[in-house]
């Protein structure tokens, strides 16, 4: 038996230690230069460090490539640094927001938050009294009611626009696009003047959910439409060629094939409304007590609670508001995860 000694696997396309050292030196040099310029010239401030660092880094990497490999490589290096800046500029504010909310909100978090409401607590009471139960249940109620109404309407609109393509396609397409730009306060005022004042005469979660539905439908419809457009026409033809009617083909083949994309559409819809405040100020009353009836009576919600607490102004109330923000962020994260899990369960089987 002969054994063939295999060559050890290598990756010749990866950066060599020398290349990495060079990159590191350029990086450090840019920091040094930025520091020097800030301390020696009139340009001051944190932002100056960032701006100068990026400028020096781009200039140094591009200049080095120009010297060692020529014009095309210099352009490539320049664009590479630009893209990296874009990514950093996008991530920085998000990271900063999360950091601030967690740092300030964590002080107001205690177990009682999830078992008590604010019915018996004043804004100046110590943090340990009162809780967020009314706001959490309120927000969940609002989101679920809005989802129940907007998912079918949004997806059916997308089906009309991509599958049926009837004579109303163009006006509906235009309306959906126009609706996605409607300011949330307008949706709130519309429900207020069209339904709450003339008909129900009372705050309720349902009124708030109606306004949120108006905001959510265009998001779901437009995203679903883009997703449905990506489904290959072969599948529709195969369904019809097997004796399916158009509706059976859409329901059995097109929508299931688009499933994960449709869930993304729903998630984007939740993201659009979960932190929405303006219509809730007009329509829900923002009560401090848990209200189990979504169709009648004032109901709290996290955005309302945050707004109310910041307005109350006492140090305890402001800490409560930050805690509310943290809970809202975590709640949205949970809703996203839940939607993802529900959506991928069958495929993963």
């Amino acid at each position: 038996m002969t054994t063939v000694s295999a060559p050890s696997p290598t990756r010749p396309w990866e950066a060599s230690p020398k290349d990495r050292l060079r990159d590191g030196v350029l990086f450090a040099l840019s920091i040094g230069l930025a520091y020097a310029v800030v301390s020696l010239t009139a340009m001051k401030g944190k932002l100056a460090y960032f701006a100068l660092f990026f400028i020096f880094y781009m200039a140094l990497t591009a200049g080095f490539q120009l010297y060692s490999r020529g014009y095309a490589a210099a352009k490539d290096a320049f664009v590479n640094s630009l893209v990296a800046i874009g990514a950093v500029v996008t991530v920085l504010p998000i990271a900063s927001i999360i950091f601030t909310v967690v740092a300030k909100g964590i002080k107001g978090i205690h177990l009682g938050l999830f078992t008590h409401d604010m019915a018996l607590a004043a804004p100046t009471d110590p943090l340990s009294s009162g809780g967020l139960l009314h706001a959490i249940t309120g927000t969940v109620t609002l989101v679920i009611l809005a989802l129940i109404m907007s998912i079918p309407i949004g997806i059916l609109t997308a089906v009309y626009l991509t599958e049926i393509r009837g004579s109303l396609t163009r006006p509906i397409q235009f309306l959906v696009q126009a609706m996605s730009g409607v300011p949330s306060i307008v949706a709130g005022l519309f429900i207020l003047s069209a339904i709450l004042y003339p008909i129900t005469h009372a705050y309720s979660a349902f009124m708030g959910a109606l306004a949120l539905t108006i905001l959510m439908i265009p998001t779901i419809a437009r995203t679903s439409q883009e997703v449905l457009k990506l489904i290959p026409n072969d599948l529709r033809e195969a369904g019809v060629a097997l004796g399916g009617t158009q509706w059976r083909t859409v329901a059995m083949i097109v929508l299931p094939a688009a499933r994960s994309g449709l869930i993304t559409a729903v998630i984007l819809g939740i993201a659009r409304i979960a932190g929405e405040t303006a219509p809730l100020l007009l329509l829900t009353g923002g009560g401090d007590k848990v209200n189990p009836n979504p169709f009648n009576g004032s109901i709290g919600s996290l955005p309302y609670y945050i707004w109310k607490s910041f307005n109350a102004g006492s140090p305890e109330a402001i800490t409560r508001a930050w805690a509310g923000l943290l809970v809202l962020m975590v709640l949205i994260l949970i809703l996203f995860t839940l939607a993802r899990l529900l959506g991928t369960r069958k495929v993963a089987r």
Partner: protein
Amino acid sequence: METTTKPSSLADVANAHVQKAPGTRALGTGLETRGIHAWFGKNHVLSDINLDFAAGTVTALIGPSGCGKSTFIRTINRMHEFIPGAAMAGEVLLDGRDVYAAGTDVTKIRLQIGMVFQKPNPFPSMTIGENVLSGLKLSQQKVSNKDELLEECLERAGLWNEVKDRLGAHGGSLSGGQQQRLCIARALAVRPQVLLMDEPCSALDPGSTLRIEETIRHLSDTMTIIIVTHNMQQAARVSDYTAFFLSDGGPGQMIEASPTNEIFSRPRDKRTENYVTGRFG
């Protein structure tokens, strides 16, 4: 004893199997097309096609790209009408009744005239088993013996042995050739009288192609098959009749339709001869 002589020409390939004569089987009167024209918008793409497809035979449609072969078979099961701007004239007679007659239930027509597409297109959200039975669900038919039907269709499509242990796997997990045979099994499950195949092997390797050709020969005992192909060898191997389509810049026309061995050995038209001998196209 080895007495095989390797077929050297298309005519020999065509002669290697006995072509069926029309009317050898009593399976209804089959399919006829009368004066089929087709348009896309103002563009006249197909002119006056008259063809008879006897029950239980395989007919190959050959011709260069863009001569209207696919459009023609799509008029037969009324898939042509899905293309925006499409129009047609003429009659497609299935057992003597025009499929375009007013009041015809078009979904019933497509159950009787099945179709296999150029690209394998199993439904991605369904398992192998669900794919095979999807036609029944789509057309809301109930069958009592689902498992038997499933096995029978996969068996006839030549796929049963390869997938019998993983019917719950997704259709997308199969190879291209297996996917295409899955699509054939799916088309068989609704028991069509006619099967249209639009270049079913163009995306497949020679091994899978051979398997599908065997499948076609088996299926032709019980149904009428019309196959569009660019592969002349394939036409010679599987078909009883061959029709040659050609477009001279205008709408596509049928130049010649004959028993396959005739079209490959003594074509009547010069253009057919040029095409089958590879002198053009």
